[in-house]
């Protein structure tokens, strides 16, 4: 059973932003609902209003241009990301990451905005997007701002989002298009599980980056490394940014071990 709340479904961006300001603190944005409705059911979140963001045109769709790069609307679902021809061709890492979230039923609902805003340390679109140098476009009645995704995540399930702000789009630089890539996700079962450790690598002619999930309070990314960096150098850079915990799913030592294993496995095989 869900507690009582009001469901609001604005059709225009200005109405959304105004509703959000008006109900500031008492409202949650509803995208795919695959995180939010679980929290509400568990009683860990008790908002009075749910504001559906799926009808806002500015938060929909996928666009690509050589000049501006790739822009993904916050309400775009995993299945849309997986099946988009430009993403499949130019950002295959992203298509792969979206394709390995939860189950088919979840991927049909789960959105990129929801994945990033839940800001779980294991967010699959977090570590992969970080490796690709993504930025996040935020909007509120006060205006729009764009920040590097690296700065967007601030702690376990915490982001820079202000009470009156929404994620509008997620932006990927054109120079990351066609990056060689590899991703491994350690799970207890195939399909349908959150990552115990995930490693996403992207490499272009000018840089190499590793995004890592479930090994720090947020998804993290290494500094830019030279594309020909040795495995030892990449592992060293990764160990600088991770700080895993011991928990029911895995120990700190095992997580560190797997980060190294995945890097050594992926690096020679980047496609």
């Amino acid at each position, binding site marked *: 059973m*869900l*507690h*009582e*709340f*009001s*469901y609001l*479904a604005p059709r225009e961006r200005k109405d959304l932003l105004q509703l959000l300001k008006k109900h500031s603190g008492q409202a949650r944005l*509803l995208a*795919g*609902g*695959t995180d939010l*409705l*679980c929290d509400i*059911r*568990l009683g860990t979140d008790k908002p*009075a*209003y*749910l504001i*559906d963001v*799926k009808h806002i045109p500015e938060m929909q769709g996928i666009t690509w241009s050589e000049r501006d790069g790739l822009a993904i609307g916050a309400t775009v679902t995993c*299945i849309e990301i997986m099946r988009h021809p430009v993403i499949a061709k130019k950002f295959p890492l992203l298509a792969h990451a979206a394709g390995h979230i*939860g*189950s*088919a*039923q*979840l991927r*049909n*609902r789960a959105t990129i905005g929801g994945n990033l805003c839940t800001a779980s340390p294991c967010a699959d679109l977090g570590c992969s997007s970080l490796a690709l140098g993504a930025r996040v476009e935020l909007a509120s009645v006060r205006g729009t701002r764009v920040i590097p995704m690296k700065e967007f995540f601030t702690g376990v399930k915490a982001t820079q989002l202000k009470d009156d702000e929404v994620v509008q789009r997620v932006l990927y630089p054109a120079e990351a298009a066609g990056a060689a890539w590899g991703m491994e996700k350690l799970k207890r079962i*195939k*399909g*349908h599980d959150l990552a115990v450790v995930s490693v996403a690598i992207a490499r272009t002619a000018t840089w190499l980056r590793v995004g890592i999930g479930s090994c720090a309070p947020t998804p993290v990314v290494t500094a830019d490394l030279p594309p020909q960096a040795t495995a030892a150098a990449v592992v060293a850079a990764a160990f600088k940014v991770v700080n895993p915990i011991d928990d029911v799913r895995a120990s700190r030592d095992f997580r560190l071990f797997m980060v190294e294993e995945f890097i050594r496995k992926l690096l020679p095989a980047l496609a």
Partner: protein
Amino acid sequence: MNTKHTVAVTVNGKKYTREVVGHRTLLRFLREDLGLTGTKEGCGAGECGACTVILNGKTVNSCLVLAPEADGATIETVEGEAKNGKLSNLQEAFHRNHGVQCGFCTPGMLMSVKALLKEHPKPTVDQIKEAIEGNFCRCTGYQQIIESVLDATGQLKPKTEEMRRV
């Protein structure tokens, strides 16, 4: 607060309109407001797939969709399978191959498979496994379900077929 929402949907070809509160899930709407109790609630949290229905052509966990979100939608549920008391081809195959034991997972399982077959009329075993990744079955061990789907699509090898068709 909590104004009512008018929700108009087409379920298995039939139109329904009801007034619901905002916090009604699609699952409860189907079961309690429309009386379509074929769809089951297992976990209520997106894990088990017992509540799977097809919403505008795509499978969803109906426990994680609000009824007002489905306003205007076309929905398919297990009740749309059998026609005039006759099981669908897919249901027959599940029956023949012991793809059903307690039956709790079956309504959701059938919807995931139905959606798969629309895209891949002759799915491979890997495609079947991927399609039912989000549908837990605590009885069959999945093998019989996979064989049911292979049988329904004319892909079950004769030898195995004999073994299963007892």
